[in-house]
């Protein structure tokens, strides 16, 4: 565990992480831990602990958050949100925590392979369009069903879909990630936990 420095603490951390103002009631967290008890990822990676992550965000401790490997394991299944007694939308918090990590160069390897499909979606209007071989397989399956050989998405729809990405600056944000140097991650919530990693 590296030494904690004063500059690692930030009392505005919660507002910085929740940059889109989507998790307005985080301060109501009771630290009851139902999120963790219901988390399928915590069952496999015991050092992943949503309760501890919320605690760190509220207390302003950034030392373990950004370079954490654990935050990339969340499935976004939203079981935490379902059982939360004060309805904290933890998945939206996780999404924004990952933005903060990405912008510092952490976890790029966990987003770039998926963003490859996002770039392709801008050409096709559909997400997870496979390569040429996969496309042929889909066309064969669809024609067996006597459906159109490809899902009907109009040229106009694809154009508008792509333009929305350009106009909101999302495309530039994604291209910026492509060119960033990657920083290493660590399992940073291991302290006091019995794990086999």
């Amino acid at each position, binding site marked *: 565990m590296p030494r904690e420095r004063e500059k690692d603490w930030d009392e505005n951390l919660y507002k910085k992480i929740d940059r*889109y*103002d*989507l998790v*307005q*009631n985080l301060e*109501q967290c009771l630290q009851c831990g139902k999120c963790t008890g219901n988390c*399928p*990822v915590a069952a*496999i*990676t015991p050092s992943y602990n949503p309760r501890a992550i919320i605690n760190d965000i509220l207390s302003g401790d950034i030392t373990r958050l950004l370079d954490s490997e654990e935050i*990339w*394991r969340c*499935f*976004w*299944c*939203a*079981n935490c*949100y*379902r*059982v939360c007694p*004060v*309805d*904290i*939308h933890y998945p*939206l918090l996780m*999404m924004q925590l990952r933005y903060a990590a*990405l912008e510092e160069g952490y976890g790029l*390897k*966990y*987003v770039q*392979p*998926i*963003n490859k*499909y*996002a770039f392709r*979606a801008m050409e096709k*209007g*559909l*997400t*997870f369009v*496979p390569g040429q071989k996969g496309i042929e397989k889909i066309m064969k*399956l*669809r024609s*067996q*069903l006597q*459906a159109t050989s490809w*899902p009907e*998405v*109009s040229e106009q*729809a*694809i154009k*508008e*879909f792509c333009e*929305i*990405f350009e106009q*909101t*600056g*999302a495309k530039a*944000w*994604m291209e910026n990630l492509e060119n960033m140097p990657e920083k290493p991650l660590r399992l940073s919530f291991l302290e006091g936990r019995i794990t086999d990693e």
Partner: protein
Amino acid sequence: MSNLHITTPQERIISAAQRIGEVPEKLFLFRSCTGSMEYPGTENSIKEVLKILEVEVVMDSDQTCCSGYILTCSGYPPEPSLAITARNLALVEQRYGLDTYMFCNGCFGYNTELSHILNHYPKYKEMANNIIAQYGYNYQGKTRIRHVQELYYLLIDKIREKVVRPLNGLRVGVHYGCHYLAQQYGILDEGDLPTFHEEIIEALGGTPVFYKERRMCCGYAVGRGFTHKESVVEPHLAKKFDSAKEEGVELITTCCPGCNVALDREQPALAKRGFGPYDIPVIDIAQLIGLALGVPIWKLGFNANTTPLDRVLNKLGLEKGE
């Protein structure tokens, strides 16, 4: 600070009749990327089933992907997804004035969540409407977002009457998928112990099997199937399949093509890593309803499955080409 999450005046669980109201004569079916590419039989089966249930289906080629999946992978900021949600839903509002029915839990969850944000944060609604105005759209939040499974449940008696190929006690384990059950308000059943799929299975003449991990996530959300397959997804799925195997599940049904990919395509990989082996075919609940209601089997698109359905079809005395 607003406490919009706390004071939302909605019931946690409501009946299908409250959720949908009158059975619609016509509905807008939202195209799912995975449901039309990986498993085109899903989309086809839904259309066939709704035809038998006398509900007209409308689709539109100007509708695009909901864009929620990669958003939740933190692949891009939420602005494009908010605008795309507003665009797709405004299209339904303006052209058809119908309710929007999803058949993918992803589309359902993301559209519900993003439209909730649009409806509760004026700044995001304005941002989205400013962008889509150039294409002639204006999102007002009129179309209601529903899942087709809610309609099946509402029409369960009609489905029961129309069964022509009863499932003869086939042991079916269901998988609900998180992004339906994790909605906190206004869903059909209690997220901890849902039973409405089991009731549908019973209506089709099958034996619903309550396996231990039936409530558990498929593990493929937010791209973890790409990035954490070995460290998290496979051990997680093995737990699920072990409990299904223990209870003698012969078939798993889903209501989300994304979950279907995870549960169906992963089985050979799990066997290679020393789990299982498992041989439990996985299909959409619409495909199973279609099967029971007598839709020709070639129209259900079982050819897309990695884990073949031959044993299930044999047990029911059916042929693949029928």
